[in-house]
């Protein structure tokens, strides 16, 4: 039998053969993100887990300020919008009032590490039983690509046009390593979403983070090293290559704290 494209389609495209499609826990609204932006992938794996773990009616998410300010339009679960950097405080309140809900904050690096640095540290130090999803693209994407606390040395942004000079602008802040050292955190991991292999790994890490919260263990925290094609002024494909070649030397991937114990030397 000759397998023409039409014949393959006829044989294979049947509901029972469907192995992957967009989860209904993402709305049908077009994402407001630029083409190729990692925010879309991060939204999707998080919502896939909420669906797979049967938490769709028991989840409350907190959206940040930043490009993902409209996350509540795209994630088809109960959501609240926080003031810039204040998502962990709002998550704290919601979790204390609704201890049986799965409560997460979803925050960019400007939101979590700059204006919200204080909230992040104290929330993790209190060991609030929430999950923080931290999208680190090393830049303020939404406002036009300014330098963030996470911008890596030498990286060009609109406010460091000659590259980040650490003598003048300080060193990138590794928030994930810092929170891992606080006794309140139970599971801390750094992941990425630039390839299919990494997306699958990141999803497993977020699953561990959700499980930790469901078991009442304290704060779980997953950083996702992501891209900002517009802010970095690169095509999406180039941005992902640049991320792999440059960001990961500074931001090492993998679990940092598991079951309340450091599993990696902090450098």
């Amino acid at each position, binding site marked *: 039998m000759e397998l023409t494209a039409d014949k393959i*389609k006829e044989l294979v495209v049947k509901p029972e053969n469907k*192995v*992957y*499609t967009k989860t209904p826990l993402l709305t049908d609204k077009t994402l407001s993100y630029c083409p*190729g932006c990692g925010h879309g*992938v991060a939204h999707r794996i998080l919502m896939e887990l909420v669906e797979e773990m049967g938490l769709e009616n028991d989840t409350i998410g907190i959206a940040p300020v930043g490009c993902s300010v409209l996350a509540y339009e795209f994630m088809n679960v109960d959501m609240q919008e926080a003031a810039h950097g204040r998502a962990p405080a709002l998550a704290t309140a919601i979790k204390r009032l609704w201890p049986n809900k799965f409560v997460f904050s979803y925050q960019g690096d400007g939101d979590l590490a700059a204006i919200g640095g204080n909230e992040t540290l104290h929330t993790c130090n209190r060991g609030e039983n929430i999950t923080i999803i931290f999208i680190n693209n090393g830049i303020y994407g939404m406002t036009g690509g300014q330098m963030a606390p996470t911008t890596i040395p030498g990286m060009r942004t609109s406010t460091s046009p000659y590259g980040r000079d650490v003598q003048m602008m300080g060193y990138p802040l590794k928030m994930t390593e810092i929170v891992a050292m606080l006794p309140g955190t139970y599971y801390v991991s750094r992941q990425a979403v630039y390839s299919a292999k990494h997306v699958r790994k990141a999803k497993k890490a977020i699953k561990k983070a959700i499980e930790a919260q469901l078991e009442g263990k304290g704060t779980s925290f997953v950083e996702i090293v992501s891209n900002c094609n517009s802010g970095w002024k690169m095509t999406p494909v180039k941005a992902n290559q640049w991320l792999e070649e440059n960001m990961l030397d500074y931001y090492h991937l993998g679990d940092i704290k598991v079951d309340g114990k450091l599993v990696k030397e902090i450098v």
Partner: protein
Amino acid sequence: MAKKVQGYIEIDKERCKGCELCVVACPKDIIRMSKDVNAKGYHYAEFFNPEPCVGCADCAVVCPDGVITVYRARIEV
């Protein structure tokens, strides 16, 4: 008759933003960008050669906009 794992993908071209990440992710190099543009003005992803597709879903897993649906079946050849 032999059996073969055959994949097939459907791309919702009007939702595609033309980022090309699926093209790079596909281990079989069977996705390309269209010459035409969709209503938003993006060159969209095209699945131009189904036969080598193994239904691994790597293309769908990296798509930021959830545009790709993947099917997989064992078929007789």
